[in-house]
């Protein structure tokens, strides 16, 4: 009985994780500009991996392997925003025709980035 409940919870969590990952992959094709696609990429690192890992942990039981998987989630939560920030900064610096793609509110910051030091 308990095993069946465990299996159903694991199934639900895994299916939820798969749905989130699917929306991330669809988003990376449908969004129009590359700065918007960062948001689709961030879905993977935050919600998607938590649901999948919880699905595996519930099926596995609590032991050292499960603790390591939760450690992976903590590391990803710490480093994924930094990756997104760095990619966004790169895109602003390199793009020469920024006005066409989006509405720029703070022109001085863009100028500061492009000049470097």
């Amino acid at each position: 009985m308990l095993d069946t409940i465990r299996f159903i919870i694991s199934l639900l969590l895994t299916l939820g994780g798969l749905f989130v990952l699917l929306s991330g992959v669809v988003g990376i094709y449908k969004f129009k500009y590359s700065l918007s696609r960062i948001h689709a990429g961030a879905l993977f690192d935050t919600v998607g991996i938590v649901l999948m890992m919880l699905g595996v942990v519930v099926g596995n039981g609590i032991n050292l392997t499960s603790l390591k998987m939760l450690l992976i989630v903590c590391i990803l939560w710490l480093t994924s925003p930094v990756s997104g920030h760095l990619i966004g900064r790169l895109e602003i610096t390199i793009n020469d025709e920024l006005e066409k793609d989006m509405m720029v509110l703070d022109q001085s910051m863009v100028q500061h980035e492009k000049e470097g030091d």
Partner: protein
Amino acid sequence: MTEAYSVLYSVTLSILGLFLLACLVRAIIGPRIADRLIAINMMGTLIVIIVCILAFVMNEGGLVDVAITYVMLSFLAVVLLTKIYMGVYHEKRRREEGNTDA
């Protein structure tokens, strides 16, 4: 019960493989550098998920160490590549300014 788990995880693994292929296509197509970097980051996370599921299915605890290493690797790749591309852009700009000045 284990049969049910193995069926579930076989389906999951094949779907995750398809996602991996989709991200790879985006990395090849994407017209800007930022697209490609995002796609590579997503591929790294997908591989981490796949390795953890395999560690559970094959009952091997040592594969999770590999997954931790992969997380660090993809983060380090993004940090280094952005720095390199910004350096390339600034160098090109300086060379062009030097040409128009002189």
